């Protein structure tokens, strides 16, 4: 009742509560403080755990990205190795003698260049990385030596595997790059023998090329090879529109599918035969499987470890919140009980002048509720703020809603009043049930 300036205000239970709280600030403040600590502990620990979860998830994303990159690197390494070892499938003219192929090192029968596109444009899924090649052993008059001249155009896009292709139908990670127009790649033996370096100009049967690069020694006939664009090789060798082999890489883990590969190729190109290197396929599949398994094991072990850590943190947080809630409840109980003891005569006279039990109950429970509401607001806000601060997570980056949900704030706002009312209920009932006759007869 603000009666200063003679302004009246209706006297009621809330006015009594307000006046008493003002009169006994210390008790109110310590009560609110204990509830703030409990509420802030509750909200803060949830925010901290959430922050920890987000940080862990971020760590996993980072780790998985690193592992994915390592896996891609492994794949690339593997492709390079496979390239160095040679393709694992070679599609030849059906008439080609394999013993002659072994003896000469190249096929003496031919396919149409268009044949490779028939496979590429089919829906066949068992082959990957098709590369048409025209290769022959020639005498290089300009240098007075024999070489293997290989005409290549890089990989033909396999349209049934669009995930490997760019918008320009180029391979994202080609296992063998094209030889640029007007250029030639050399095997090491050729380069050493003829003292050639990248940038040097060579003439092959009247065609001029600039040395593009020199491959490191492989210990195969590649060391004696010169690679030029396919059309140039066709021109030099007098085989326009022809190739003498299609190098192909089989699909992932396809060792048991070799029969299927042969059937698929025969269906599209009945005039061909498939020559394959099964040991390479098996090695490739094995490498891939091992790498994949290792990747899964690392991630699984890390997740398991993080789950254990999180479980421990949750247990610790629950225990802490439990202790805080218990402590606050006891403190509120003691505060209200002490308040009742101090206000015994006040309760006696209020009852004598006509206050009902429920009105006395309202005075004490109202005080508890007010304490809880104030503490709920302060505790929720400070708990969220401290949780964010200690989690080290930038909410501007993760978004507040991911770090702290409305439900948690709502629970925090609810926790303090419920706690205060629960702890204050018993002493409040005791106050309401005090016999005024006993109190007033003490005088």
């Amino acid at each position: 009742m603000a009666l200063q300036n003679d302004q009246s205000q209706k006297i009621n239970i809330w006015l009594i509560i307000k006046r008493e709280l003002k009169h006994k600030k210390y008790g109110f403040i310590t009560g609110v403080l204990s509830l703030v600590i409990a509420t802030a502990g509750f909200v803060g620990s949830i925010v901290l755990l959430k922050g920890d979860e987000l940080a862990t998830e971020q760590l996993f994303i980072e780790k998985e990205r690193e592992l994915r990159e390592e896996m891609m690197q492994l794949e690339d390494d593997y492709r390079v190795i496979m390239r160095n070892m040679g393709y694992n499938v070679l599609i030849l003219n059906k008439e080609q003698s394999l013993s002659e192929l072994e003896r000469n090192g190249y096929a003496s029968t031919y396919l149409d260049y268009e044949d490779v596109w028939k496979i590429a444009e089919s829906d066949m899924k068992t082959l990957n990385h098709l590369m048409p090649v025209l290769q022959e052993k020639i005498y290089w008059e300009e240098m007075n030596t024999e070489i293997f001249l290989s005409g290549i155009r890089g990989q033909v896009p396999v349209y049934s595997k669009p995930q490997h292709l760019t918008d320009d139908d180029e391979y994202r990670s080609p296992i063998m790059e094209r030889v640029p127009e007007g250029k030639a790649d050399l095997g090491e033996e050729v380069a050493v023998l003829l003292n050639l370096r990248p940038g040097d100009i060579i003439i092959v049967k009247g065609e001029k090329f600039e040395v593009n690069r020199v491959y490191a020694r492989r210990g195969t006939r590649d060391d004696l090879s010169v690679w030029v664009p396919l059309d140039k090789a066709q021109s030099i060798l007098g085989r326009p529109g022809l190739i003498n082999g299609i190098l192909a890489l089989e699909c992932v883990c396809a060792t048991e599918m070799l029969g299927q590969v042969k059937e698929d190729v025969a269906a599209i190109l009945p005039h061909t035969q498939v020559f394959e290197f099964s040991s390479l396929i098996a090695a490739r599949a094995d490498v891939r499987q091992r790498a994949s398994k290792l990747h899964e094991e690392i991630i699984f072990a890390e997740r398991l470890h993080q789950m254990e850590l999180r479980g421990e943190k949750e247990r610790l947080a629950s225990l802490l919140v439990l202790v805080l809630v218990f402590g606050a409840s006891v403190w509120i109980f003691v505060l209200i009980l002490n308040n009742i003891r101090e206000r015994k005569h006040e309760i006696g006279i209020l009852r004598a002048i006509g206050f009902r039990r429920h009105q006395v109950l309202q005075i004490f429970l109202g005080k508890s509720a007010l304490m809880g509401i104030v503490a709920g607001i302060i505790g929720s806000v400070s708990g969220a703020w401290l949780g964010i601060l200690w989690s080290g997570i930038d909410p501007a980056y993760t978004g507040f809603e991911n770090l702290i949900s409305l439900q948690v704030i709502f629970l925090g706002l609810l926790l303090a009043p419920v706690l205060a009312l629960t702890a204050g209920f018993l002493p409040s009932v005791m106050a309401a049930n005090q016999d005024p006759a006993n109190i007033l007869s003490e005088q």
Partner: protein
Amino acid sequence: MVLSISGIKKSYKKVKNEAVKAVNDVSLEIGKGELVAVNGPSGCGKTTLLLIAGGLLYPDEGEIILGDTNLYDISANQRDKKRAENIGFVFQQFYLVPYINILENVLIPSIGSNSYSSSLEKRARELIDQFNLSHRIHHKPGELSTGERQRVALARALINEPSILFADEPTGNLDDDNAEVVLNYISGFAKEGGAVLLVTHDGRIGKQAQRTYKMKDGRFINQ
């Protein structure tokens, strides 16, 4: 008749279950405009009688009729309401609420009777003025003298215009001058048509009463 007390008995169980008869077969009637004093030494049962008459303590036997209502035949809530609307109490210890000011203390019974109104506040201000406390209207009880506190307690007892006032040693903590002032107010209430039951161990107070009962060992000895 404002109050009728008939055949009241009340015993307390003390050590070894031995009953102490605090009030033993007491009867009296108080009409409008009557100030009745009960006089007796400490522990004779005066306060117990007053608490029973005021509807605060169940008697073992007998009945209390306030107006036309038997106070102990109605529910506790109804009795609280009856007390808020019809009875005023004044005690030796004043029992003012320390954290609210004088005007709020005088008005506090209106919460129990749910009777607050601007006219009631006007009456509170008039009572405060009548008891020479206007200059203290915004003060807390702790800032008042004992005489002033008792006058506030008296104003509080009268705010709901009770039909009867119960006063328990109302001058027990006051000096002679203040005691006289308070007693004048109490007898003034009776002269204006109110009923008063006043219990005291101070023999001098009985002078202003129409009737004085002497009490000893729970009984009226001069009835």
